[in-house]
């Protein structure tokens, strides 16, 4: 196993494993976030956020998630550099549009844009909730004192058209990234055959649309309703 992670397939293995881990995370993340739009009093979302913040399993997964993000991001730049240097003299004319999808050719671009979104998104919410909770208001729901995460989130969307648009674009970019990344991860792990390739590609599109629509609906909801 000595040079496994530096072999071409080993490098991709790490990308797909971390990618699938993030795919699972994003589904949980969306589920909790959708609580935002089903209860305007914020009770539902605050309960959800409180559960996530205090659940021991989530506490264990948090550093793992951070590690997953770090590996996926840092490794991608390393991989792309190696792939890029496999062609020192570039083609003068290239017409790749007919033979591959735009998203598949621009995973690094999409990923980098999602990273920019991610950093601002973390500054907006995660950083405040995790490290500066005293700056947030508190609410008492059913006798339990908890941070008012709902107000933090809804105030951002209610107060700024720019942030709404920014989060909508973020959701769309993530969707494109997933539309290729989801099935690509299975293909890399060898978990695809002549029946499953088409199914995985279909699932990939469905998943990307669900995630993309799910995350864009939240800012849209605040934009339209308030």
């Amino acid at each position: 196993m000595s040079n496994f992670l530096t072999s071409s397939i080993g490098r991709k293995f790490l990308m797909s494993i971390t990618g699938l881990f993030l795919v699972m995370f994003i589904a949980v993340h969306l589920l909790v976030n959708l609580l935002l739009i089903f209860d305007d009093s914020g009770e539902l979302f605050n309960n959800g956020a409180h559960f996530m913040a205090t659940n021991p399993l989530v506490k264990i997964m948090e550093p793992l998630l951070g590690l997953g993000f770090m590996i996926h991001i840092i490794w991608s730049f390393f991989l792309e550099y190696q792939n890029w240097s496999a062609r020192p003299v570039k083609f003068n004319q290239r017409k790749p549009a007919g033979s591959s999808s735009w998203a598949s050719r621009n995973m690094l671009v999409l990923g980098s844009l999602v990273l920019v979104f991610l950093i601002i998104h973390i500054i907006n919410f995660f950083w405040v909730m995790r490290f500066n909770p005293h700056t947030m208001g508190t609410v008492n729901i059913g006798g339990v004192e908890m941070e008012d995460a709902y107000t933090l989130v809804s105030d951002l969307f209610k107060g700024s058209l720019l942030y709404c648009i920014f989060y909508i674009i973020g959701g769309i970019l993530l969707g494109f990234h997933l539309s290729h990344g989801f099935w690509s991860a299975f293909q890399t792990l060898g978990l695809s055959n002549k029946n499953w390739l088409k199914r995985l590609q279909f699932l990939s599109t469905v998943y990307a649309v669900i995630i993309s629509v799910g995350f864009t609906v939240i800012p849209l909801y605040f934009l339209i309703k308030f």
Partner: protein
Amino acid sequence: MADKILKKLNIKVWRQNRASEKGKFETYTIENISQGSSFLEMMDILNNELIEKGVDPIAFDHDCREGICGTCSLFINGRPHGPDTEVTTCQLHMRKFNEGETITVEPWRARAFPVIKDLIVDRSAFEKILQAGGFISVNTGGVPDGNAISIAYEDAEESMDAAACIGCGACVAACKNSSAMLFVSAKVSHLAKLPQGRVEAKKRARNMVAKMDELGFGGCTNTGACEAECPKSISILNIARMNREYLVARFSE
């Protein structure tokens, strides 16, 4: 039916004297080319004219000219083997081009495929990968009786489909990462699907992938461009199979 004549074409072609020299594009004009002629015939006619003018003819690889040997290459108008699907350059016809068009002709571009001269690249990297494991070294005995070794129809078909690879290198040229995974996976698959090749499947996947990496090909990002541009339509499912073979081999070490 008489073929239409293309009265004038501009051929923008890569000229490079030798590996160590810098190359550049030259544009030549060629007249009265029948649309019924193949792309390589057009190149032959152009070369004749260049020789008559005392210019060094354009060097390009070709052999069987019937699409089965894998010798011809050329990156034509931004696509390996030109603007047609499931054919090699020798089977590409001039009817795919229009009057007055400028046709850009480039060699395969990859670190592992250095240019030797003009449009000829050194594809011996593929040979080296084959030498690393694209063979069966177990003793398979004499010629077996028919049906003595039963092979499922599906397996035989998949093996033969993978064996259709002619090793032209279009997959490497089509790939944005210059990855050779379609080629290597076709070679891994066509042997791994048969009982004689099964014996050394793990070792083969490990050695061929290691050699591929050593020679400086890029990694696969599953864009699928290789399959779309492959003159033999080798499926990317072979890449999934190679990944599986390789991962199993490495994890069982």
